[in-house]
């Protein structure tokens, strides 16, 4: 990661930006969270989040540091299809729109995605789902924490451990102080920062290089990047689409927002967020196509974004990238902390160990769970296991296996528990096998196909007859 001196800030400037934004997020989180009373106030922001904050939080959470850093990398490696494939991650957000509406209608008092699986499919399927969801949530959290340290180190030279610790500590602190209200409120500002930042960079690339020169230089030096028939890239496109759908359909990050939005907001918020999210990887990614025209030497593909920004705008470009990356990291880290701790609190602590815990006890425990989760993530981030980010790819097999059990469970009375459990287990197992035998780009694809077949066949062979009213009483499990 020392390969990008040209894109680095000095440590002093890095510290100044870190300090300014850390104070801003903590103060804003504490201010917004002052009205987060009781369990619903802390976990679900009072269940009355409006369209503006709802749309922004869905966008900000889905824009991770990966979107801003890996989209240019993919464009540099897979060309036009790389950035288009990444942008299809938005399909998950858009497809979740009708699900969010259905979730709110069926479970107006629900708390977590685990609540739904437990009530809809019973305890065995619930535990399989929890294993998948917690594995994914925790893997994503740790990889985001590590990405924070790695990026701060690469962009400013600040030591990995210190940078990672500061970013994690800031996110944990404001999430503990304000719960989901703090997370959603800061997400709004973070969304604006990210959007304005990537547009400025794209505009600079367009005006300083121009499409004609950019196209001619790529055609001359890297013509494969403009090829629309790159098989591996097309396979990546569909795999990425299903990976995204699986991530969103099962994860409590998105379910907790569906519960938190006021009535009538969920569908619109997720649909608009998907539409606005779709172009971001293209805008963030295409600047990599300026590399041949600018004559840049890119020693590490994952740092192409900051390199181009620094070349176009000097130190100001490096500062801009750092601010955008910090906002993207914080907006995802805080959401993961809040949603994963909700799952641990509701489905593990209360669901398995303290079934009669009062709401007051849970509200108190919620803050400790967030802090404990942050501490655990910090400990796992310390060794800087660089392969973990790559390992996260294979969670595609896990999450894609949940798409059909969840969608069918929400809309089909006849989907049955045994089929849902088998779909998740077999989808994951076969998807993982294909990950190792064929490649990362088919894991989610195969897992979703296997899971879909099992759900369809099991529903056809042994149809259930689920009573939707059971879901409406979800609050009983929390009183």
């Amino acid at each position, binding site marked *: 990661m020392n390969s990008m001196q040209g894109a680095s800030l000095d440590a002093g400037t890095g510290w100044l930006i870190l300090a300014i934004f850390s104070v801003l997020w903590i103060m804003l989180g504490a201010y917004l969270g002052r009205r987060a009373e009781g369990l619903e106030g802390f976990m679900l922001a009072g269940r009355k989040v409006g369209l503006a904050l709802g749309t922004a939080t869905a966008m900000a959470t889905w824009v991770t540091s990966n979107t801003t850093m890996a989209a240019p990398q993919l464009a540099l490696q897979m060309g036009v299809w790389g950035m288009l494939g990444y942008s299809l991650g938005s399909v998950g957000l858009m497809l979740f729109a009708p699900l969010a509406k259905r979730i709110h209608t069926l479970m107006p008092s629900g708390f977590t995605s685990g609540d739904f699986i437990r009530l809809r499919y019973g305890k065995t399927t619930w535990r399989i789902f929890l294993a998948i969801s917690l594995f994914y949530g925790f893997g994503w959290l740790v990889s985001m924490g590590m990405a924070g340290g790695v990026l701060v180190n690469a962009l400013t030279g600040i030591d990995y451990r210190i940078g990672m610790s500061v970013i994690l500590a800031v996110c944990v602190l404001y999430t503990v102080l304000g719960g989901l209200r703090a997370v959603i409120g800061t997400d709004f500002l973070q969304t604006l920062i990210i959007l304005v930042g990537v547009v400025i960079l794209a505009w600079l690339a367009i005006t300083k290089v121009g499409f004609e020169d950019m196209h001619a230089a790529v055609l001359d030096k890297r013509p494969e990047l403009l090829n629309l028939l790159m098989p591996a890239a097309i396979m990546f496109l569909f795999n990425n689409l299903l990976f995204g759908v699986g991530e969103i359909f099962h994860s409590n990050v998105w379910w907790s927002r569906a519960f938190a939005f006021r009535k009538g907001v969920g569908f619109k918020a997720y649909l608009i967020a998907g539409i*606005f999210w779709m172009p971001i990887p293209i805008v963030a990614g295409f600047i990599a196509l300026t590399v041949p025209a600018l004559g840049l030497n890119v020693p590490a593909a994952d740092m192409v974004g900051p390199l181009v920004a620094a070349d176009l705008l000097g130190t100001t470009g490096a500062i801009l990238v750092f601010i955008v990356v910090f906002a993207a990291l914080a907006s995802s880290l805080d959401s993961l902390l809040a949603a994963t701790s909700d799952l641990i609190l509701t489905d593990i602590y209360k669901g398995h160990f303290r079934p009669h815990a009062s709401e007051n006890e849970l509200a108190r425990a919620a803050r400790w769970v967030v802090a404990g989760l942050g501490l655990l993530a910090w400990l796992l981030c310390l060794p800087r296991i660089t392969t973990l980010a790559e390992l996260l790819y294979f969670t595609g097999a896990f999450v894609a296996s949940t798409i059909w059990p969840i969608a069918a469970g929400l809309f089909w009375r006849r989907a049955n528990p045994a089929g849902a459990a088998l779909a998740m287990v077999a989808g994951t197992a076969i998807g993982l096998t294909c990950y190792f035998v064929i490649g990362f780009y088919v894991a989610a694809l195969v897992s979703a196909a296997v899971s879909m077949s099992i759900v369809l066949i099991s529903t056809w062979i042994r149809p259930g007859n689920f009573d939707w009213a059971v879901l409406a009483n979800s609050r009983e499990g929390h009183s």
Partner: protein
Amino acid sequence: MTISVTALTWLVGTATLITALAPIILIIFWIKDRAKGQLW
């Protein structure tokens, strides 16, 4: 089959325009929600 400069211009230009509009739309939503007392 190579993407033409015109198609690339349209693709990136449209994406940039939508991304530039997004913060304005979000701020309009925020003002409307706040006026109706439905921010939170």
